[in-house]
């Protein structure tokens, strides 16, 4: 066991929480691991990104073709927010909430801007988590 690597993994995990990328729900997922399902969290995160792709595309299309159908946009985003909260994606969730605020205000520009930020946060989180999971794997072999 590489103690140094384990410490790095622990530090990285801590910073993900400290910097607000993840919240308590991520810990709930970690608690669902066991010997038979050691990669449960990674599986759920992977599933989240796979599932989300379609929803993201739907929102993108709606923004492009129907930017003033705020009810539909809000509906999509409500779904997406729910999924993000299931994996503890804190910053992503914040963007979702912001987007919904703009929907309620009928602010198309705000929606578009926030959606860009949301996609960035999604990508950032994905990168960080991939790195984290990889490091954790290495530390345990």
């Amino acid at each position: 066991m590489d103690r140094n690597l384990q410490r790095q993994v622990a530090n990285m995990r801590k910073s993900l929480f400290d910097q607000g990328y993840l919240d308590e729900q991520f810990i709930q997922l970690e608690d669902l691991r066991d010997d038979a399902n050691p990669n449960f969290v990674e599986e759920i995160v992977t599933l989240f990104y796979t599932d989300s792709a379609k929803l993201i595309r739907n929102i993108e299309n709606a923004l492009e073709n129907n930017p003033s159908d705020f009810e539909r946009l809000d509906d999509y985003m409500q779904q997406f927010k729910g999924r993000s909260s299931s994996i503890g994606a804190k910053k992503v969730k914040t963007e979702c909430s912001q987007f919904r605020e703009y929907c309620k205000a009928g602010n198309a520009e705000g929606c578009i801007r926030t959606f860009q930020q949301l996609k960035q946060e999604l990508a950032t989180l994905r990168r960080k988590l991939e790195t984290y999971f990889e490091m954790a794997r290495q530390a345990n072999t």
Partner: protein
Amino acid sequence: MARKGGESIRQRSPQKVGDFDQPSSPKLHVLAVDDSHVDRKVIERLLRISSCRVTAVESGSRALQYLGLNGGEKKSSVGFDVNLILTDYSMPGMTGYELLKKIKESSHLREIPVVIMSSENILARIDRCLEEGAEEFLMKPLKLSDVNRLKDYITREQGAEKGGRGKRKRNLQDDYTPSSPLLSLPPP
């Protein structure tokens, strides 16, 4: 089926009397309904870790089929094997509320407790579900502690007399905030 390091939580045999996981309690069978694949997986895991059997379906209509309604195959024993129905509120097609109504309208299913989950804390929604006979309304994402409490509650209800059904249940234990789950339980 490949045995990957022992999926000891998975149910091996079909339901039968005396299927025990602990000396004195048979496994509860929960029917989980959620259109989100991620949430289904998490709920399944939460329930299995809590020693429940789980059947997870993606929609209200699938749930009704499984329970023997909706033109599904008449498996008369299946519907009665379910101890709890745990359903998301917001689903395309049939909402959790609509599913709840259908279950409560059915003479042979209405005794099965139904718990609704939602990521949105809307009081009118909560009230509506409780009025319609939902046992509880839980905020998503669910935690292990929610499932454990549910499990205790259902197990207790099964042992207790089935009196007072249809009573509105509001939470008195724990600090009640709008985001707290609503469940009336005697203090531990």
